């Protein structure tokens, strides 16, 4: 196990320099490297405004598309009516009966229609019913206002707890739960609730469909998973693999929000384009994007924890209810991850976890950074912190007595044979944040606080884990492929469907391959994410890009290197150009093979749920305004075990970004609903942190490599999201003495707890 940390803060170059907190070394400016790793490959294009996002692309003669959506949460669609006094010859309207293939959004089960058919059921607000296209936006706007839905309302279900439509359910555990509680000196119970949150990528969803001369369709857009879109396109338009082409444009953020939804949008654009025989642009505005696209699954998590006086957790009984929204989408997978992580990173002998994902008449929920784990781990860490308080044991110490170590067994009976860095991240974060010292200080402040105090400071800690890659046999079933080729012209090219959305795919892939081949970073190209060019490397999700696909390209590069060196008898770097000229190009395709010794049984849902786990610990400091309940998160230290740091700046960037999203989750991001419709449906009302809301974030990268991956990497994108929120809420408790069980821990909830007035309802409240 090797452990590295990011370099410490640099010292100022000139004594006259101003003194901000972290002063980078001025001498490194424009030297072409960022702390030893290459500069972002597509950085200059993004910085000069020349990177082309979907809406920047120009397609001469393109029409504009729009979507007519339901305005009720549950209804029978009786008809779609047009105003007679409008020139409909200037507009094309597409409905369900115009779909050449299956009227199904292809995901796990075939329950979601692309467009609600007449006679069918509207199951959520903002559900797509019809599509329109016109040559200009004014005509389109007018036409949309002149289409009406005729409906018959049906009774909606909004409360997931009472919903009887279950998408998936799980039950897992170990030991003897009754015996566990019998042995406990103390039992603590708690219910924790989290609502909908929006991924809020700054670039709205966008797709442009262009009919092909061969009768097929090319779709270019903002997306994470080209082959998901490809599959959906083929099915809806009844096209074969060659005549459906999907190209990723530069993508302005995804965070899971562009995992499933782009498939639906791509099909919408394609249906219009196919009908009119010209390109169609469908670029969402922010309001439509928030109103119609997937959100994080709301959850209600109940815990019952039995613990001994000495602080040993002896029993955990946990139940989770996840609100899937109107259609199944990926809810079973979100649920399984939430369930597996629900106990937190603790080795407890007796565990029982039950869970279900259910339907409500709200827009379907989907992937969002963490994918069920943040919800589950918020509850788990709240519970552990409350147990610590009840016992009078430090939250740090209580965790030390219960965390997983190598050899520990998870609720799916997985033995954690290697790569367990829970202790490491816990100690590193606590030390860097001076947790115990500051906790003592906040305790003294609390004791000395008078009734007239205006502010209160607090510190809180949370520990988390995140299974790397797909759950269970997902990776094996997918059989992802990635390739490295040496072209006849002597170019070295990576071919993978993994997308860049800011996390650094296009930088680390060439880095890994260049390293393997012994050539300079700039000598390695990466092919565009175009399904007619690259193989299906699987989706860019689940923090699998560096670990799984990165592993594939390393192996492919190794084989390429071996081949060339065998032919030429010389090192690759010296001989590859000559080899290309004489041999005429080589391509190595690497297909995913299951990691040795990693087995999962889908039937019993037991075994190695993940090849390895990543581990993280966050320590947050807050200052609470006691007059208004406003919370200023002053700093967060986040120690994250990513297996192996491939690029320190990019890895820190993931920790910093994920941490701020977790801070937003904990404090200001909230969606209220009325009649199943999101009320916070524009940026004025759906709030994410600004630069002055954001804390100082200190990312500490820890390495506990996974032996199954050639480079040891385990993934970094989602891990930080699992720990930030409970750390902040623990800090709020430390400052004020109040425990907030619902997210966000808004000023309304905090002031109600401090002031003793009526608290706001649970997250969401669909009335």
């Amino acid at each position, binding site marked *: 196990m090797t452990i590295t940390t990011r370099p410490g803060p640099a010292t100022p170059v000139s004594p006259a320099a101003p003194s901000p907190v972290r002063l980078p070394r*001025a001498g490194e400016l424009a030297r072409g490297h960022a702390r030893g790793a290459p500069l972002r490959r597509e950085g*200059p294009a993004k910085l000069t405004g020349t990177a082309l996002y979907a809406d920047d692309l120009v397609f001469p003669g393109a029409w504009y598309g729009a979507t007519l959506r339901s305005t009720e949460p549950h209804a029978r669609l009786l008809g779609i009516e047009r105003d007679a006094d409008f020139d409909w010859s200037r507009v094309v309207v597409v409905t369900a009966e115009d779909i050449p293939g299956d009227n199904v959004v292809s995901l796990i089960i075939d329950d979601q229609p692309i467009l609600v058919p007449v006679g069918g059921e509207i199951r959520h607000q903002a559900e797509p019913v019809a599509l329109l296209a016109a040559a200009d936006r004014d005509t389109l706007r007018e036409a949309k206002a002149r289409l009406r839905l005729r409906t018959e309302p049906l009774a909606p279900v909004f409360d997931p707890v009472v919903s009887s439509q279950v998408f998936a359910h799980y039950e897992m555990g170990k030991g003897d739960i009754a015996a566990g509680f019998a042995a406990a000196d103390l039992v603590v119970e708690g219910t924790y609730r989290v609502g909908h949150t929006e991924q809020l990528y*700054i670039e709205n969803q966008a797709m442009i469909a262009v009919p092909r001369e061969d009768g097929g369709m090319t779709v270019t857009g903002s997306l994470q998973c080209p082959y998901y879109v490809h599959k959906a396109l083929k099915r809806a338009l009844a096209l074969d693999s060659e005549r459906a082409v999907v190209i990723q444009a530069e993508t302005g953020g995804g965070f899971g929000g562009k995992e499933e939804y782009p498939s639906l949008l791509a099909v919408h654009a394609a249906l219009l384009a196919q009908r009119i025989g010209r390109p169609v642009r469908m670029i969402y505005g922010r309001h439509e994007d928030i109103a119609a696209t997937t959100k994080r699954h709301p959850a209600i998590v109940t815990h019952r924890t039995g613990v001994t006086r000495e602080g040993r957790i002896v029993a955990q009984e946990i139940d989770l209810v996840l609100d899937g929204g109107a259609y199944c989408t990926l809810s079973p997978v979100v649920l399984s991850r939430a369930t597996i992580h629900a106990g937190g990173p603790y080795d407890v002998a007796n565990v029982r976890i039950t869970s279900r994902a259910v339907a409500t008449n709200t827009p379907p929920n989907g992937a969002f950074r963490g994918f069920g784990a943040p919800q589950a781990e918020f509850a788990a860490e709240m519970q552990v912190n409350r147990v610590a308080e009840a016992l009078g044991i430090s939250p740090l110490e209580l965790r030390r007595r219960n965390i997983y170590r190598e050899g520990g067994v998870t609720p799916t009976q997985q033995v954690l044979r290697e790569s367990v860095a829970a202790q490491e991240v816990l100690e590193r974060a606590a030390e860097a944040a001076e947790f115990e010292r500051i906790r003592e200080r906040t305790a003294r402040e609390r004791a000395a606080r008078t009734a007239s105090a205006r502010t209160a400071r607090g510190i809180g800690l949370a520990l988390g884990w995140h299974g790397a890659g797909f759950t269970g046999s997902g990776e094996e079933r997918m059989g992802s492929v990635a390739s490295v080729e040496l072209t006849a012209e002597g170019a070295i090219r990576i071919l993978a469907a993994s997308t860049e959305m800011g996390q650094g795919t296009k930088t680390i892939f060439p880095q890994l391959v260049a390293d393997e081949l012994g050539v300079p970073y700039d000598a390695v190209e990466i092919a565009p994410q175009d399904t007619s060019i690259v193989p299906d490397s699987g989706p860019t999700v689940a923090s699998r890009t560096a670990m799984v696909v990165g592993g594939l390209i390393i192996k492919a590069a190794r084989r390429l290197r071996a081949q060339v060196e065998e032919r030429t008898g010389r090192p690759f770097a010296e001989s590859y150009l000559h080899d290309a000229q004489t041999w005429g190009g080589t391509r190595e395709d690497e297909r995913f093979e299951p990691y040795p010794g990693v087995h999962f049984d889908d039937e019993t849902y037991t075994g190695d749920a993940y090849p390895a786990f990543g581990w993280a610990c966050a320590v947050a400091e807050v200052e609470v305004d006691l007059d208004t309940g406003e919370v200023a998160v002053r700093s967060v230290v986040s120690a994250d075990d990513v297996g192996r740091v491939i690029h320190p700046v990019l890895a820190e960037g993931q920790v910093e970004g994920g941490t701020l999203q977790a801070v937003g989750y904990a404090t200001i991001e909230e969606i209220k609903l009325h009649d199943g419709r999101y009320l916070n449906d524009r940026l004025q009302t759906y709030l994410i942190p600004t630069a002055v809301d954001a804390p100082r974030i200190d990312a500490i990268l820890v390495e506990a490599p996974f032996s199954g991956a050639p480079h040891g990497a385990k993934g970094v994108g989602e891990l930080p999201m699992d720990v930030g929120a409970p750390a902040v809420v623990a800090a709020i408790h430390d400052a004020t003495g109040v425990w907030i069980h619902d997210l966000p821990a808004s000023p309304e909830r905090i002031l109600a707890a401090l002031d003793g007035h009526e608290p706001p309802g649970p997250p969401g409240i669909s009335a």
Partner: protein
Amino acid sequence: MSYELRVNGVEFEVAAPGMRRLLDVLREDLGLSGTKEGCGEGECGACTVLLDGEPVVSCLVPLCQADGHAVRTVEGLATAGPQGPVLSPLQAAFLEAGGAQCGICTPGMLMSAEAFLASGADPTEEAIREAIAGNLCRCTGYTKIVEAIELAALGRGADTAPGA
């Protein structure tokens, strides 16, 4: 109606409706797609440009009010070099420090940062954060954006620092 704009030092005559958003004039009429639309309601700052040197959200500025004024966009930051565009010190600092991830907020962020640095205000962390408070970023947590602006300020300050 016809309006006159000076964009990145170049005069343009634009025949478009007076209520056209400056954002659309830049992106569609002038083909300068570097400035981005994130929300259309002036909340995210992705469309930030400099109007007579001051940051504004171009989604809320009608063409008739930009008439006769100078606009600076992200396309005006880099300079032309013999082998292609040369990044400005601010852009280079962002590249070095990792201030851009997905890049969609970057053009607007750069313009706000540019105006801040040009103002000569003391580049404390607090002042930098306030200067970019109207530019939302979802990827970076702002940490490396602030570092990049500090780095760029240092570069600017180096010209006038004693002994430099």
